[in-house]
């Protein structure tokens, strides 16, 4: 005897993500979910980004890691509120789920905050499937990885709204084919903005910062698509 169910398997997470999205919107906070494989430079990118943007836009960060508070310690030095999530307290999860972000957000004072970065666990697979209530998703790759990362992880690159190719300062020392990497990203997501930059030297940061500011403006003027 067959009993119809017809439900999304992740419906509990999706409901919680919608709830987060509503709460963040109410508070006027723009939320960016930053994802990458381990070591692509998410934390360095956020450090460099915060050093500039937090001068004019009040920011906060939620950092997810399986263990350690190293990333949170680095980001706290940028002078913005930082909330650390160690996913091993939740079973060593390889991604942040909506309820975990909700708990971290509750523990922060978001009054006056306009931009919240969520640095996800370093992983190009699992975080792609879990909505956390963000406005935008950004994937970071770096020139020390293969140019074919987008083709190997299409779900991640397809579900993101912008891509960053980090560590451009290393290009002279590598055989990395930047055009091929960009083409691979655009094969998966033809209209996606791609920012090639070096979080270390600051080269190429301006277009990325402008994109961020435009997203926040869009949301506060209520024209977010």
């Amino acid at each position, binding site marked *: *005897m*067959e*009993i*119809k*169910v*017809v*439900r*999304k*398997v*992740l*419906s*509990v997470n999706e409901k919680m993500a919608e709830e987060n999205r509503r709460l963040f919107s109410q508070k006027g906070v723009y939320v960016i979910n930053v994802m990458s494989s381990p070591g692509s430079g998410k934390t360095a990118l956020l450090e460099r980004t915060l050093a500039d943007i937090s001068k004019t836009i009040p920011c906060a960060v939620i950092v997810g890691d399986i263990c350690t508070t190293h990333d949170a310690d680095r980001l706290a030095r940028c002078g913005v509120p930082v909330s650390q999530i160690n996913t091993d307290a939740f079973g060593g*999860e*390889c*991604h942040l*789920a909506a309820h975990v972000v909700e708990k971290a957000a509750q523990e922060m004072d978001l009054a006056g905050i306009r931009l919240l970065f969520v640095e996800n666990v370093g*992983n190009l*697979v*699992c975080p*792609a*499937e*879990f909505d956390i209530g963000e406005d935008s998703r950004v994937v970071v790759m770096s020139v020390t990885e293969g140019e074919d990362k*987008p*083709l190997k992880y*299409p*779900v*991640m690159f*397809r579900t993101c709204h912008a891509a960053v190719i980090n560590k451009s300062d290393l290009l002279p020392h590598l055989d990395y084919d930047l055009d091929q990497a960009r083409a691979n990203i*655009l*094969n*998966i*997501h*033809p*209209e996606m903005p791609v920012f090639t930059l070096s979080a270390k030297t600051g080269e190429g940061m301006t277009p990325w910062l402008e994109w961020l500011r435009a997203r926040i403006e869009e949301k506060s003027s209520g024209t977010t698509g």
Partner: protein
Amino acid sequence: MHEMGIAMEIIEIASQSIPEALKGAKVHSVRLKIGKLTAVVAESLRFCFDIVSRDTPLNGAVLRIEETPVVARCHECAGEWTLEGPFFSCPACGGGKLTLISGRELDIEAIEIEDEDDAHANGGK
């Protein structure tokens, strides 16, 4: 990696879906629809499901997985096509803006439970 969590969600939803009158009946199978453009590996999911379903009403149930193709619709020319590889531009007009009509499903469609007739039939064997 996250298949364990997904298996646990499936067990939660499937357990809740067993009608009161059939509590305790054996669940033969769970029918799932999983899109090709999801980060879910069917074999890992089955492996995890077999482990976490022990001591639940789903113990011994099999996962019947229907894999759905990645189908897109172009915003420019309204053409629809099935993607066979990771190339998301419209083959007709080259447009890059598209809506995915299928391929991102991760749905639990139905459960199959042993009902009284099955139970009698089995008992009579």
